[in-house]
């Protein structure tokens, strides 16, 4: 999957940008605050229809403007396609190959992109909810039933918690327990299955970025008391969960919320048996974060048969020692990639066009001789 051209209007500080894009991608070079990350954000937005900054789409409208527009031409499975999204305060319009799309979910993932950002460190050192979101996004991108299961589970959970708080729910509690389990079981099973699929890949990827085989590993730690093998069997999860709901009833009632279920799952990330969330060094945590994102790219490719575009935001200045160079070397030219960097490092720009970004303008020098 490769972008061939990009047009941006009023997207943050990128007021008017039109670019032809080389098949291998580009390095965006410029000082901070010039618009490098905004360019990556725009591509990410076309892929997921939301910002990786977690902000509402209206916030991405350039200061003083009424709307933004992102448009891209790209090739996918040998086809030339276009995808455009424009948004103002009121609404958002998505055009795929010139035809309007009703719901974003119908076009999400048409353009596949994976972002690697300094903020990904949060995935490893932040709260368990950051890691649950990561897992949910991986599963949700490929599966609409999973997204619906999450929404349903969330609704049942809120109902059950309200029942616990109101303190007069004994008569209907069993019905809500059964609903909770029915809507939550597919989530537990999907997560267990995904993490099992990813575990080896993660160990391999992290070892390669770190250039040491130091036992990086991930494990699914479900809140429902089952081991990770049983977590993939519906009857085991159901049984363990309903027993736990009974056991924890007094605790739940006193606290006024449900203490066992996938909303409290953990994706554990360890190195040599130590949990990185609490005991990891900066370098180790960065390595793990990069590995999680690369895994996201591999998984999307495995599930769709299309190779995602990589958006690498200032990743190389964050990785110590030779990790950055090894990462880039390993990526090779399999993916089209867009890399931001404050300085035009020789090893970074090797084989990639260098675009200068300054005050919302992106300049592409004449293409260098092929090499």
């Amino acid at each position, binding site marked *: 999957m490769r972008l061939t051209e990009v047009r941006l209007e009023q997207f943050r500080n990128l007021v008017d940008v039109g670019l032809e894009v080389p098949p291998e991608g580009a390095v965006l070079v410029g000082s901070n605050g010039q618009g490098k990350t905004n360019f990556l954000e725009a591509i990410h937005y076309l892929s997921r229809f939301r910002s990786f900054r977690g902000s509402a789409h209206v916030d991405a409208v350039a200061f003083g403007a009424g709307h933004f527009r992102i448009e891209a031409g790209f090739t996918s499975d040998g086809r030339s396609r276009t995808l455009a999204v424009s948004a103002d305060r009121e609404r958002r319009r998505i055009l795929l190959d010139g035809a309007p799309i009703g719901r974003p979910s119908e076009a999400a993932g048409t353009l596949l992109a994976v972002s690697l950002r300094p903020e990904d460190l949060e995935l490893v050192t932040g709260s368990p909810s950051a890691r649950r979101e990561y897992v949910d996004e991986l599963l949700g991108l490929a*599966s*609409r*039933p999973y997204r*619906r299961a999450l929404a*349903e589970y969330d*609704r*049942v959970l*809120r*109902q*059950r918690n*309200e*029942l616990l708080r*109101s303190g*007069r*729910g004994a*008569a*209907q509690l*069993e*019905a*809500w327990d*059964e*609903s909770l389990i*029915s*809507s939550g079981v597919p989530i537990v099973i999907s997560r267990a299955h995904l993490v099992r699929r990813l575990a080896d890949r993660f160990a391999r990827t992290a070892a390669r970025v770190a250039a040491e085989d130091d036992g990086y590993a991930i494990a699914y730690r479900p809140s429902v008391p089952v081991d990770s093998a049983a977590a993939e069997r519906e009857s085991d999860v159901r049984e363990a969960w309903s027993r736990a709901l009974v056991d924890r009833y007094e605790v739940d009632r006193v606290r006024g919320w449900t203490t066992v279920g996938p909303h409290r799952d953990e994706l554990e990330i360890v190195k040599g048996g130590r949990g990185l969330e609490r005991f990891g060094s900066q370098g180790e945590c960065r390595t793990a974060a990069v590995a999680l994102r690369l895994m996201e790219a591999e998984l999307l490719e495995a599930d769709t048969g299309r190779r995602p575009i990589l958006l690498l935001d200032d990743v190389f200045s964050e990785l110590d020692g030779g990790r950055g160079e090894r990462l880039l070397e390993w990526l090779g030219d399999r993916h089209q990639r867009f890399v931001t960097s404050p300085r035009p490092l020789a090893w970074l720009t090797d084989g990639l066009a260098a675009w200068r970004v300054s005050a919302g303008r992106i300049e592409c020098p004449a293409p260098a001789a092929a090499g």
Partner: protein
Amino acid sequence: MAGAVEQLIEELSRLPGIGRKTASRLTFYLLKQPRESASRLSDAILQVKDRISFCETCGNIAEGRTCTYCLDPRRDESVICVVEEPSDIHVIEKSGGFRGRYHVLHGRLSPLDGVGPEALNVDRLAERVRQGGVEEVILATNPDVEGEATALYLRRALAPLGVRVTRIARGIPMGGSLEFLDEITVGEALAGRREL
């Protein structure tokens, strides 16, 4: 704005699905209508309140103490179809596929809205089953989170009474082509398949 106009807008905007904008459009429309047309409308509203009540047996709307479905001797007394609202009966009747009796809950379980079983027409349902002659109770609550929980609650509540309890199927609409259905609907239809 004149007091009377403001008051009507206020009253109309309390109706479900009607916001202030629509309410004021309706108000100004009514303002332009002849007096008898407005009077017909206000009469019709009062008639509904005065003449219509809820069936003592099933909770459906009725002119009198019993609704037309409970009075109809040709309907099968051994099957009761449980719905959330009287309007759901209308939908099932239009399908023409059901000739039994009904039972209206007047809502569904929703702790977030403060609705528990005591607020629903449940005791009367158990009473009807206990009186005998009922072989099957079909739970036709909506296939959403609250409707499912309500169905699960009723299944448990009816279990000791030894009556057969069934749930309406979810799946592929007639005339629907598999190609155009979303994977959730298809998945549910597969899970709910039956022997041919």
